[in-house]
């Protein structure tokens, strides 16, 4: 019997198989980078020997989120419920008030200078208390709005002090944290960011939630 040549394998469906695999990996790939709100927890309290410093009530923006996810705020001598949509505006108004006189006067503040509200950026404290039944998404929204208020003021001051850079505080901070930024650019940004962070410190404290 004559020796027959082995028939050629049909490779026409190879492309189909490869496409199928390709589509599978396309769908399952998750290239997204994790991002979120960076926060720092306060260190554990040792038994306090000395009393905590006395803080004037006008310098505290007391924010309370209850179990029905409504916001209640106590500041500037008034207590009221506010909407989440107004929180950023209210927080900016509080931080930027600049009601201090003498040593506490705030040169950069552009607020109403209400004597019942915060003295200056350094003195203003935002305090947040939530209930154990508060929903996480509301909590994140509140955190987001407070951070937005700080970022808004920091952006403003950054632009006022370094108008030539053409970026705002948030962008500068992102560039500083970006591993792709050149080291000399980083060094330039570092001091500027530090100055702004010292000018408008994030004094945002979280009280332990109420038990019920």
């Amino acid at each position, binding site marked *: 019997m004559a020796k027959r040549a082995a028939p050629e394998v049909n490779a026409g469906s190879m492309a189909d198989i490869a496409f199928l695999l390709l589509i599978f990996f396309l769908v399952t790939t998750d290239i997204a980078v994790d991002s*979120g709100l960076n926060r720092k927890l306060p260190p554990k309290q040792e038994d306090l020997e000395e009393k905590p410093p006395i803080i004037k009530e006008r310098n505290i923006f007391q924010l309370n989120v209850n179990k029905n996810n409504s916001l209640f705020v106590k500041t500037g001598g008034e207590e009221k419920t506010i909407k989440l949509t107004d929180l950023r505006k209210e927080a900016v108004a509080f931080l930027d008030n600049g009601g201090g006189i003498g040593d506490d006067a705030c040169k950069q503040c552009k607020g109403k200078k209400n004597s019942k509200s915060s003295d200056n950026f350094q003195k203003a404290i935002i305090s947040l208390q939530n209930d154990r039944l508060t929903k996480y998404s509301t909590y994140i929204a509140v955190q987001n709005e407070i951070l937005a208020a700080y970022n808004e003021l920091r952006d403003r001051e950054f632009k006022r002090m370094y108008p030539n850079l053409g970026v705002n505080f948030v962008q500068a901070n992102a560039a500083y944290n970006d591993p792709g930024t050149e080291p000399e650019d980083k060094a330039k940004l570092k001091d500027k960011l530090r100055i702004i962070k010292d000018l408008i410190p994030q004094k945002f404290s979280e009280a332990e939630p109420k038990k019920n």
Partner: protein
Amino acid sequence: MSKFKKKSDGGLPPISTASLPDIVFMLLFFFMVATVIKEDNLMVENKLPSADQIEKLDKKNPISYIYIGKPSRNYQSKFGTADRIQLNDKYAQVEQVKAFLSTERAALREELIPRLTIAMKVDSDANMGIISDVKQVLREENALKINYTTRKGDAVAKN
């Protein structure tokens, strides 16, 4: 009469698709290499809330993930619908967070330990109670850098 018609001349020759598999394989290999298969098998519902003041999580620093949420649907008959903590790929109690932290830290070089970031991946519908408990443990264990992982979007509109 011929069995096969003679092909008419002058028509455009068909484009060769012989190299198509090569191109597709190249793409396939790219995606295979770029794909990161999820480390943790999620056993909790994990619909992250959105926020817009977000920063990227620095991959240079070590990251440990803590997932919180209701058990996923196929576990609900067994574990109920109360919020649960998931560490690695097991449900855990609040007390176990401490042990989890020490194992995570033991795997790190010493100079990296203070830079360990805890990424909290919490479902939007979870209650704050369990999160506060976890935060208390983290404070006691001096793991102070945390990140509430969120999606990018408008935080206020969804509430």
